[in-house]
């Protein structure tokens, strides 16, 4: 069955408009439309994608051309899957929004834009869809808590997308007048360097990587809960897509550094990626708001993707791609879990929450599996991608990047555990005893699917590794990941007699299962323990009656935070001062040029004439 991708984009737009029209009549129905819409789109793309039924010819949107590429399909499936899962939450959150119908429409429009970006082969119309996503998602943010986040978001993503535009136009100029996507590869000399710098700039802004990350925590904290899930799971992958084009598709940039045989350009990207990881982890550890913490975690995971891509080895790039899948699933699940809690408890501040597990155990399990994958612990998908990225980093022998990646993964244990302990576990606060109840079935369904997927990608990586290999073939990169049986082969060492380092996730899962079974046996065999109330705890001496005093969730990592407390606002202050400089420049010009006295104009006229004649006469 053949269907052009253009039909899908138009269908999504049509769904959006339908959602708007129905949304005006009845809020809930409108948001249910978004569920139907995104599910059909995801189903369609995934099914046709795998059976090769997608074609690129355009009947209606004649000004642009589409081309079904493997990596386009890869991203499209992930993003539409994330949209589909998150759309399940829309009906439950629609009541909080000022413009519910508009919300559903823009939700579908940003999906349409994203799909457009991944499949368009004409660079200018890649930018067209890129900008389309920016402004449609822009109006989703203010529906949440703060209004300032929207202008920060637009400022950074406009800067990013205009950098992308400048790069595209440089390519257009270099390949004398062609916008085809293959033009990226065929750029050489200084234009290649300029294009590389600007495109990675665009990727950095969209991914929220180090130098340009200020908007990510602001937006993901203040946007409505489903929107932040969509942002961190889906829209961030646009940045990864551009990063793939910029870093991998263009090949090495600049001279090769002999000791670690890496291109200079890629080295810079890797270092910035490492800084993103470290900065993201440090900031995440000290956050009190769960959503802000997850925002910084998706920032640091973005750093992993960048480090992976910039290794330019099969392990590295595959690790990056795999990490995109694992991170998309894990962070969407985590955000949805926090959203479920926020819907019922009203706040995501860890200070005010505690002991949600007793009323929402399933959400807790979903969140547990999500953070295990985000921290990169074995049975889950995150481990495999981090393992591959470590392999690549060590194979290149890059010590400082290695330190950053290790610090990032160990640090992720800390910051993922913090919401677990403060939000879910610990004393059950009285005010939540009555109000909090388990999320309804339709909210649990996507979360459970995401967790199962997390486990699946962790245990049986076969399908995704084949897809990644197909991408490498499609992008004419001579990379390949060897799979023998269920194990992934790491890089082969120089020393003979020593086989390649193997990772058999299925085996690890079984062994872990066996271990847990044995522990369970031990537990069951022994005497049954008496269940006692949570309040009845071993407190030396004085007895405490109120739950709040027995719940430790305020500044959880105090000793660690004290170490770097002074430096956390460097980047934010830098951008604030930049904005102020523009404002001061504007105010000065206003004061200087726009007084009520006409002599300013005459003065400048005389000045310009003197300036011209001076050169001419003398």
């Amino acid at each position, binding site marked *: 069955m053949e269907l052009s991708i253009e039909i899908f984009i138009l269908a999504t737009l049509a769904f959006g408009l339908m959602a708007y029209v129905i949304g005006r009549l009845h809020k809930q129905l409108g948001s249910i439309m978004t569920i139907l819409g995104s599910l059909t789109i995801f189903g369609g793309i995934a099914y046709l994608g795998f059976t090769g039924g997608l074609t690129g010819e355009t009947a209606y949107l004649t000004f642009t051309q589409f081309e079904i590429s493997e990596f386009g399909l890869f991203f499209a499936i992930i993003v539409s899957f994330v949209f589909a899962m998150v759309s399940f939450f829309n009906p439950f959150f629609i009541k909080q929004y000022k413009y519910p119908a508009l919300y559903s429409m823009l939700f579908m429009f940003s999906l349409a834009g994203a799909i457009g970006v991944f499949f368009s082969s004409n660079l200018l119309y890649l930018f067209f869809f890129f900008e389309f996503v920016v402004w449609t998602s822009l109006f989703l943010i203010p529906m949440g808590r703060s209004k300032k986040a929207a202008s920060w978001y637009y400022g950074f993503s406009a800067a990013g997308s205009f950098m992308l535009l400048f790069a595209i136009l440089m390519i257009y100029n270099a390949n004398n007048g062609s916008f085809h996507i293959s033009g990226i590869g065929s750029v050489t000399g200084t234009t290649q360097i300029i294009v590389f710098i600007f495109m990675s700039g665009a990727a950095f802004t969209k991914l929220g990587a180090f130098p340009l990350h200020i908007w990510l925590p602001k937006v993901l904290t203040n946007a409505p809960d489903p929107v932040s899930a969509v942002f961190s799971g889906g829209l961030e992958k646009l940045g990864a897509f551009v990063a793939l084009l910029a870093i991998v598709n263009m090949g090495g940039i600049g001279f090769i550094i002999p000791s670690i045989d890496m291109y200079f350009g890629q080295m810079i990207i890797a270092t910035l990626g490492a800084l993103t990881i470290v900065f993201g982890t440090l900031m995440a550890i000290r956050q009190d708001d769960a959503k802000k913490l997850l925002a910084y975690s998706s920032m640091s995971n973005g750093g992993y993707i960048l480090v992976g891509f910039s290794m330019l080895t099969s392990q590295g790039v595959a690790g990056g791609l795999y990490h995109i899948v694992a991170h998309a699933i894990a962070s969407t699940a985590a955000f949805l879990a926090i959203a479920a809690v926020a819907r019922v408890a009203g706040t995501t501040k860890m200070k005010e929450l505690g002991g949600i597990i007793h009323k929402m155990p399933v959400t807790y399990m979903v969140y547990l599996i999500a953070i295990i994958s985000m921290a990169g*612990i074995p049975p889950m998908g995150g481990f495999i991608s981090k393992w591959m990225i470590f392999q690549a980093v060590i194979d290149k022998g890059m010590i400082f990047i*290695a330190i950053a990646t290790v610090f990032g993964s160990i640090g992720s244990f800390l910051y993922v555990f913090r919401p677990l302990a403060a939000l879910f576990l610990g004393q059950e606060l009285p005010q939540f005893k009555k109000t909090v109840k388990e999320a309804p079935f339709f909210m649990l369904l996507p979360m459970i699917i995401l967790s199962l997927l997390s486990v699946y990608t962790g245990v049986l990586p076969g399908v995704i590794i084949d897809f990644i290999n197909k991408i490498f073939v499609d992008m004419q990169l001579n990379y390949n990941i060897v799979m023998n049986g269920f194990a992934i082969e*790491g890089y082969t060492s120089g020393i003979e007699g020593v*086989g390649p380092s193997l990772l058999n996730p299925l085996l690890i899962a079984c062994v872990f299962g*066996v271990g*847990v079974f044995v522990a369970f046996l*031990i537990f069951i065999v022994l*005497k049954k323990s008496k269940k006692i109330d949570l309040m009845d705890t071993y407190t030396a001496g004085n007895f405490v009656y109120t739950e709040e005093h027995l719940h430790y*969730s305020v500044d959880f990592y105090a000793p660690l935070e004290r170490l770097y407390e002074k430096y956390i606002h460097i980047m934010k202050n830098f951008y604030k001062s930049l904005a102020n400089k523009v404002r001061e420049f504007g105010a000065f010009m206003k004061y200087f040029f726009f007084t009520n006295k006409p002599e300013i104009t005459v003065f400048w006229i005389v000045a310009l004439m003197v300036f011209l004649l001076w050169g001419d006469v003398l």
Partner: protein
Amino acid sequence: MIEILMNIGFGLGVATFGFVLQTAMGGINRKIAARLQKRRGPKWYQEFIDIFKLLSKRATSHGWIFDFGVIMALGGIIGTAMFMPITSSIVAFEGYDNFFIFVYLIAVGMLGMAMSASGSGNPLASIGVMRALTTMLAYEVPFMVVVMTIIKLTGTSSLTGIAVAQQTGDFNWFMIALPLGFIVAVMSLMGMLGKKPFETYIAPAEIASGPMVEYGGKQLGMLFIMHEITIFIEVSLFVHLFLGGAETIIMFLIKYFIVYAVLNLVSNVLGRFKIDQVVTFFFKWPLFFAVVQAMIAIHLGWVI
């Protein structure tokens, strides 16, 4: 399929051997420490007695997460131990004993224990967990840098591969080949084992023995088993990485005893760090030496 079952059985055997070995070693070292303090110290099998006494007691539980956490912790550690090679030939799963599996599966154990500790409702447990995780962050990073140097040099990340590399003479023992790395590894190992200078998170004197405060009866017993097997994993990891593994079990036992005894002696005479001192300490000198060692080994290629 049978062959996999055989391997799993063999793995379980390795795990129990680990548990028995470490508990015995624990007892013996208790006696050595006592001799240091001019007293006789308890019998060498004292630790066995403690564990089995605890397992037989009837205990209290703070809800399903409290128990599920303990099971997951012990299960994770047993799973990790199953992968551990005893000697370069005796290993449960040929070729799959990847170094990263150990680091991350220990994390599963840690996470399980932390989860149940926080689930117990006692704030002291949560503080203990917080301290454990912070210390882990501190000692793990320098250790990983050194191990990465080793992996870069030997080219493989499987433990048997590294052990074989040291035995077959390509490299002599990394204890000698990478002196600075070895020192850093010792310090991290003491952090891992929770020995004296870095044991703020489980020290009884600090906050009622940290995370374990709410446990009793079988849960505490299971956690003790988990603790013993963790020490076994970490010490044998150290042995394989730095002391060239072992051809025969006896060699392995001797090396194991030497490492564990020396560590115990050193830790008995030292004081105890405050938590943020641990982090600053590990990120100051050990990390510096680890980086210097890595630079020398990888980029300049000076390996003794």
